[in-house]
């Protein structure tokens, strides 16, 4: 992978945050929290790459909702979210549509999150410092 800046203060995947969620009394999927690995917050439009892999299987993008500020966004919408600010100390909740939920026990969560630091140009033509905010953790699922 090409050079990317890493500024790590806390784990990206938040401990003890994995749980199934319910709709109409049925398990509709699971969710967990993530933190931005940087010293300040950012608008979601700076995110260049986002993906979630659970137990080695990549989650299809359309099953993912990224929740901040009391709203839910699809990764496909990030580039339009230039007024949605993700506070650096506020976790975002990643919610995955997965009817039946995750089975009891531990699950390995891998998050890919690369963004541009939008005030740090590294060349002409819209080139900005890439920042690595990826993270992995094995979490037990709570119901």
């Amino acid at each position: 992978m090409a050079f990317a800046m890493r500024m790590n203060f806390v784990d990206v995947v938040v401990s003890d945050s994995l749980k199934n969620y319910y709709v109409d009394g049925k398990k509709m999927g699971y969710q967990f929290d993530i933190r931005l690995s940087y010293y300040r917050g950012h608008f979601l439009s700076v995110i260049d790459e986002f993906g979630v892999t659970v137990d080695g299987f990549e989650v299809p993008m359309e099953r993912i909702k990224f929740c901040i500020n009391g709203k839910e966004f699809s990764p496909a919408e990030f580039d339009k979210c230039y007024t949605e600010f993700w506070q650096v100390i506020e976790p975002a909740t990643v919610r995955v549509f997965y009817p039946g939920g995750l089975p009891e026990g531990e699950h390995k969560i891998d998050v890919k999150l690369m963004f541009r630091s939008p005030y740090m140009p590294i060349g002409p033509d819209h080139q900005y410092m890439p920042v690595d905010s990826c993270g992995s953790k094995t979490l037990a699922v709570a119901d």
Partner: protein
Amino acid sequence: MANVKTGITLFSLGTPYLKGELDLEGVIRTAAEMGAEGYEIVAAQMIPSYPYVSDEFVSFVNKCKEKYGISPICYAANMDRGMLRDRDLTEDEMVARAITDIVSANKLGCTVMREQYLLSPQGLARLAPYAEAYNVRVGIEIHNPESPITQSILDYVKVIEETGSKYLGFVPDFGCFATKPNKPYWDRALAAGAPVELLEKMAQLRYDEVPQDKAAEIMMPDMQKYPVLFGTLSSMYGFVQFRKSCKDELEGLKKIMPYCFEMHGKCHYVDENLHEVSIPYEEIIPVIAASDYDGFIVTEFEDEGGYNAVEQTTRHVKMVKKLLAESR
């Protein structure tokens, strides 16, 4: 005669804040305990309603002022020119963002705003009527590798003088006066196994003002052997560059002093004898003390080396106060 107050930018306590060891009130309380007479806040780091300032946040800040005696004196804005995925913001869009920041700064009670250089001199000039109306002096940060004598800063001087506005100027960061290699980067290279002789060789190339591409050519075999040195070289020629003497830069600072609204007292490592190991405060502070500067020197601890943020910031505030007292 200068009237210098010492403050801190809450950014200095970013590590404990981000880790949840101190909440915002704890950060402000700690700043007051260190002897700060006011603080700068990095808006995108610590204002919960960013880029706006909510009434709730204003009352929080006022409560903290009652309890701890200090309030925000500078709103540090970011110019996120690259925030859109497909293109840079236009000048109109950047000016619009900066006006939003001026409004927020005013609401927070700040009379100074730090702006970043991605806003062009022309863009800065367009802020004058808003800065004046809202009583917020907007200063472009002069950050290493820029200095008071580099061309891009002189371009701002020209525009500031053309507008004649007392509300447009600068926030110099003392990192631009560095005369020694940056300690955290140096120590990181050593920890990764790079021999000290190679670091010294590289630093000498920097001191001798050998151009970066030429220095890279000379160091290539060493860098291939110790890849950590690639990063060290780009830092020595980038945001933490240094030179034999900062006399010319300090002369440049004297010239722009009437336009300086705040100073960033950058530090990476202050030792137990209250000495910043890369930035010659013993030379910088007397220049400011002898000027007509009226404003804050705000401690900005850059946590690159893993040192204790509270200890480093405390030492730096003490160092600045001591040097100011000695210069009187």
